[in-house]
């Protein structure tokens, strides 16, 4: 239907075709020259992608190792790691037992940074609101339907809440943000845990779905009376209002980089497979979560060379130490000291043929 204007000269078309062919062929050959440099491939979570992008760029300039990270989602990263097509995976969610058994070999979860999920809303006058865990759970369960509900106004004295319906906005696509948020809700609300549970995609009891952080943000910003959840970084960059939440120790904490890191300032298990939401840390923001780098504990699989395994370990060590300097300027929360200690132990346990790579 689209007419490619009658070519009066067949020569013109021929020239274009040959030019295109030359370009295509040259791109094929361009990649062959660098076979000697070690190149690492990773795939997974979209949340840390801006951070990893910058990290790998800096790492490349310092060490000359090229790292290629594809942000295809935590699920995709886990799947590629199980299929052994990538050197490491990135995930906002802990691998389920089912996935781990499919992998047939132990996979380490090494945290690289932390993020927070904030509750954003759209009310006339944008008042600063405070929420308690049960209120959040009941709003997203569809049990609290009006903004001027007694429970909300009790917690927020002095704020004039309008008589509007609460419209819930959630994620339509599978995401680590949803995983972190639903983990929090499962921990603070037994009804949520039973009815909905924790996962990257959920059977939401109520509300509209938006695609990606930007979809949720777009819907919330457009719809008066709506409430939704987005990553902290996203809310900060887009100047969206978000609330303070009461944490386990009873403090109302404002979500920011400091309180997110502080959420990890508590007893952490050795394998770091911990979901941070509803943390014990007194000054920690309760809806925080790690994002992990996933690697096989035993690096000699599928014919991998020892050199490659060493490069992977070096990369992860750098990411959890020097690389942490890059987190704050990009509004990501750096790992707390306790988290770094545990990460070091995990990295040192990565082996090649049974021998630990890093002493």
């Amino acid at each position, binding site marked *: *239907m*689209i007419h490619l204007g009658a070519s009066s000269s067949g020569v013109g078309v021929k020239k274009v075709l040959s030019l295109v062919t030359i370009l295509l062929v040259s791109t094929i050959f361009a990649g062959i020259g660098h076979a000697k440099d070690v190149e690492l491939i990773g795939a997974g979570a979209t949340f840390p992608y801006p951070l990893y992008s910058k990290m790998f760029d800096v790492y490349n300039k310092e060490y000359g190792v090229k790292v290629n990270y594809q942000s*295809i*989602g*935590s*699920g*995709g990263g*886990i*799947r590629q790691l199980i299929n052994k097509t990538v050197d490491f995976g990135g995930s906002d969610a802990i691998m*389920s037992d*089912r*996935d781990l058994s499919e992998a047939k070999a132990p996979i380490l979860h090494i945290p690289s940074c932390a993020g927070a999920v904030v509750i954003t809303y759209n009310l006339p006058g944008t008042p600063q609101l405070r929420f308690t865990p049960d209120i959040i759970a009941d709003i997203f369960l569809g049990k609290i339907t009006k903004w001027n509900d007694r429970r909300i106004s009790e917690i927020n004295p002095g704020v004039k809440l309008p008589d509007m*319906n609460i*419209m819930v906005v959630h994620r*339509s*696509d*599978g*995401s680590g943000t949803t995983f972190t948020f639903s983990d929090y809700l499962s921990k603070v609300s037994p009804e949520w845990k039973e009815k*909905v*549970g*924790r*996962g*990257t*995609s*959920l*059977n*939401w009891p109520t*509300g*509209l*779905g*938006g*695609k990606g952080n930007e*979809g949720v943000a*777009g*819907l919330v910003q*457009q*719809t*008066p009376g709506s409430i939704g959840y987005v990553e902290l970084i996203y809310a900060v960059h887009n100047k969206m209002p978000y609330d303070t939440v009461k944490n386990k120790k009873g403090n109302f904490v404002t979500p920011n980089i400091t309180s997110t890191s502080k959420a990890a300032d508590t007893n952490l298990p050795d394998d770091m497979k911990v979901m941070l939401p509803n943390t014990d840390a007194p000054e920690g923001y309760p809806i925080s979560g790690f994002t992990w780098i996933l690697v096989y504990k035993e690096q000699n699989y599928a014919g991998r060379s020892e050199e490659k395994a060493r490069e992977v370990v070096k990369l992860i060590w750098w990411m959890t130490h020097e690389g942490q300097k890059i987190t704050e300027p990009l509004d990501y929360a750096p790992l707390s000291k306790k988290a770094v200690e545990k990460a070091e132990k995990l990295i040192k346990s990565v082996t090649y043929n049974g021998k630990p790579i890093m002493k």
Partner: protein
Amino acid sequence: MLGNDTSTELKYPMTLSKDSATADALTKIHARVKARWKSGFSESSFRKILYFAGICVLVLLVAIFLSLVIASFPAIRRFGVGFLFGTTWDPVKGEFGALPFVVGTLIVSFLALIFSVFLSLPTSIFLGEYFTEGGTPTFIKSMIELLAGVPSVIYGFCGLFLLTPLVRSLEVKLGVAPYGVGILTAALVLSIMVIPYSASIGREVINLVPTDLKEAAFSLGATRFEVIRKVILPYARSGIFAGILLSLGRALGETMAVTMVIGNSNFLPTSIFSPSNSLASVIANEFTEATGRLYLSSLIELGLVLFMVTTVINVLGKVIVRRMGVEG
């Protein structure tokens, strides 16, 4: 046309054969063999290439269908036919049912079709009958074809940022829940996207109505409108419908634009304003993060359902087109 190429006729010299009759016969045979070799070679091998291409397409289609079936086997084995009627889509508990998405897809697509016909049919008549030649009609034709070239993500953005507030204010006026997104918004966006397919084909078909039929009607005293209604449209009916069928096929499979404005709610829709979800939109949204064989195979089974729904509708449509063509 079969290479009666007498220029290559070879005349056997008299000396090579005993008598002129044999020489003539040999010449004729030689000529015929050469002619058939030339034309037969190109003719039959050309036909073979065409057959091969056609069979390739068929094989591809069957391969797609088979790979969908094989990949969705865990889900088929688990849910059986109940998958088509289940209303719960719960990835956490492992319960999957496709009914809300099938209903959403069908409603949005058919609604979009109805909306689009209101614009595309008059456009086809306008460009096919009234203003067929000239600068402005050519410009309009190009603009309509440009509609087909706009990426669907752009349509999604426009729908989300331009159309949604309008629909929301309408909902506020009517006193319904002011979602803004939902079936109506998705159908409106989709209807604009599928206009080019039915408009272009309709225009061509209307243009092809034989002039003597029209002139006969005019000479009998019919008005322009009567000619359109009683001669052109009945004649072009099957072609116009085929164009509409093409639009429907596009509408059923459209993913990006729909997923941005449909509201993504996994419940059965209750009204034209309620949010819903479509098969393609669910697959696109959840596929990358899906882990677990049952979840993945359920998503692929959604794709299989979409494939079969599209096939059924296309077959039905073809039957109707043929029916219309025979009558007209």
